[in-house]
């Protein structure tokens, strides 16, 4: 037992692998228990998690604010849609195709991230926020400009294989979707956890905390910042691609500026810079609209128009308020609060 512990303590990769496998097994059991609707929600959480984990690495570790991650998700989603449809047209189908499309989505988004990152590495604070805001506004508009490729506001349908026949004829599609998305999310978390614990993470933290000191100790600051953007874009691309697969369609309305703001809220409320915080954020992104739906349908059942107005806007208002309060009162987010609480509890326990 102690040897196992020493082994796990010594190797970060091994510890993360064990944790991922345990989490994967627990989630597998969970998907067997949940009904199809909850499985679909779980899949959505997993898709968002890819993006929030990427964003928290960028904003939390390297200190670069991005309001354009919704747009980067759109890049991934549209790439996956175009790949899937093009392959299906040429009768290339089967379950091996989807990972290829997702990979293409990730690669294209990484390229887009590199372009933004190159500009971002020269910008700070509000300037960077302004540029990424412009990206968030421009990308949905691009789908209208290049209408013959992206089919403007209507968007594209995405061809997605049904679950493999080996799983049986009555296998619920939502469970299959949950497996796909969870696999993507676990892979993202594993890779990001390793990356941020290692030299790359230390470099980013050094750049964030003191750029001049980082430069003096031999860190290429611009290179680190561009790399952070590329890594972060990979997460956003995978998340967007998975969302496209889940919804089996993509449209510019799904990747508006509001989505970008939501992603930022999610990582700030969850706790900037911590991957566990990204999990809280992704959960919140799915749970809060759901909660608002139940609340508003219970509140104003009398007038459907008012209920609709309330339902669409209540989550936004709650998110915005929470964001302001968290930023002022609790800058470490949920994860920071938990860490502080557990620290206090541990101190209260008698020492062994």
């Amino acid at each position, binding site marked *: 037992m102690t040897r196992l512990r020493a082994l796990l303590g010594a190797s970060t990769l091994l510890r993360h692998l064990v944790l991922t496998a345990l989490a994967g097994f627990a989630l597998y059991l969970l998907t067997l228990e949940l009904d199809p609707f909850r499985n679909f929600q779980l899949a959505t959480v997993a898709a968002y998690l890819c993006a929030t984990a990427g964003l928290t690495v960028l904003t939390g570790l390297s200190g670069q*604010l991005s309001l354009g991650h919704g747009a980067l998700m759109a890049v991934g989603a549209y790439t996956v849609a175009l790949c899937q449809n093009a392959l299906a047209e040429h009768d290339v189908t089967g379950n091996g195709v989807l990972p290829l499309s997702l990979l293409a989505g990730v690669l294209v988004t990484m390229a887009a991230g590199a372009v933004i990152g190159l500009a971002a590495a020269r910008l700070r604070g509000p*300037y960077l926020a302004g540029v990424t805001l412009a990206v968030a506004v*421009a990308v949905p508009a691009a789908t209208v400009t290049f209408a013959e490729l992206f089919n403007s506001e209507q968007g594209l349908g995405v061809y997605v294989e049904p679950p493999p026949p080996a799983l049986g004829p009555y296998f619920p599609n939502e469970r299959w979707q949950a497996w796909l998305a969870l696999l993507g999310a676990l892979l993202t978390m594993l890779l990001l956890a390793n990356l941020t614990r290692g030299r790359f993470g230390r470099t980013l933290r050094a750049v964030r905390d003191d750029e001049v000191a980082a430069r003096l100790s031999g860190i290429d600051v611009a290179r680190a910042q561009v790399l952070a953007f590329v890594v972060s874009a990979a997460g956003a691309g995978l998340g967007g691609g998975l969302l496209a697969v889940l919804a089996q369609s993509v449209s510019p309305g799904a990747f508006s500026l509001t989505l970008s703001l939501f992603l930022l809220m999610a990582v700030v409320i969850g706790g900037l810079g911590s991957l566990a915080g990204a999990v809280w954020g992704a959960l919140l992104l799915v749970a809060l609209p759901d909660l608002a739906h139940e609340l508003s349908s219970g509140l104003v059942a009398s007038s459907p128009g008012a209920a609709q107005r309330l339902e669409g806007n209540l989550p936004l208002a709650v998110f915005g308020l929470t*964001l*302001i309060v968290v930023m002022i009162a609790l800058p470490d987010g949920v994860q920071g609060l938990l860490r502080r609480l557990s620290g206090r509890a541990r101190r209260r326990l008698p020492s062994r």
Partner: protein
Amino acid sequence: MDRFVFLTFDGLSKGAVLAAFALALVLIWRAARIVNFAQGAMAVAAAYAAYSVTAATGSYWLGLLAALAGGLLLGALVERAVMRFVDHRSPLAEVIVALGLVLVVQAGLGMVYGNEFRAVATPFSRTALEVGGIPLLSRHDLFVFGAVLLVLLGLALLFTRTAIGLRMRAAAFAPEVSRLLGVDVGGMLTLGWALASAVGALAAMLVLPTELGLHPHAMDLVFVSAFTAAVVGGLDSPPGAVVGGLSVGLILSYVSGYLGSDVTPMAVLALLLVVLLVRPGGLFAATAARQA
């Protein structure tokens, strides 16, 4: 040629509004070193106030007055109730809180008014007057130029000729020394926010009749364009904001006139990137303050 002339005048009119909006950004940047990302949402809120007042009284001018008063109040409220409590050491915090405000304001407007476009009243016709057979300017454009010019002159007089303007400049330039000399630095900050927000509200009232209509998100693209204008001018300089606003307005007018209006957002992004990469200090910045 006719088209070019028309687009030029249209661009100048659009640019005047962008200049006013950029000026609002510059005012807050000079006073508090914050880019107010909630400016667009706050201006839309003031425009909705005008919409309600105009609908209730039937008078455009009472509505405009309500928008200006609403802008003043909202600006003061945002500074007193929210921005004052934000940790100023981290540049991220202010931007994130402003974005939270955007969500709250837009969601609040959506809850009260609904998320559909509403027609905006304007007291002047928007059909262009013809000079020698060429359509040049509409009465609305003339109103825009007049209003923006009035604001520019008013602000210039306020900051250079009055005691309160001097105190505002001192409070922004050297807060500690000003406080020792008896200037109410916090009060000046609130006043700066209120003024900026009222200027933003006026800009929204001027630009909305030329857009699709009143909508919680109506100012999103205008904000990005005005931010670009402010950056072109260097964020720090009021004359820079005016020149930046006019040039961005002209460029966008040519782009949307010759290439189609849906290209505009991408043109704004390209313009912003080019300006920031080629001349990061802006055209009018006095110091290299970009490396915050």
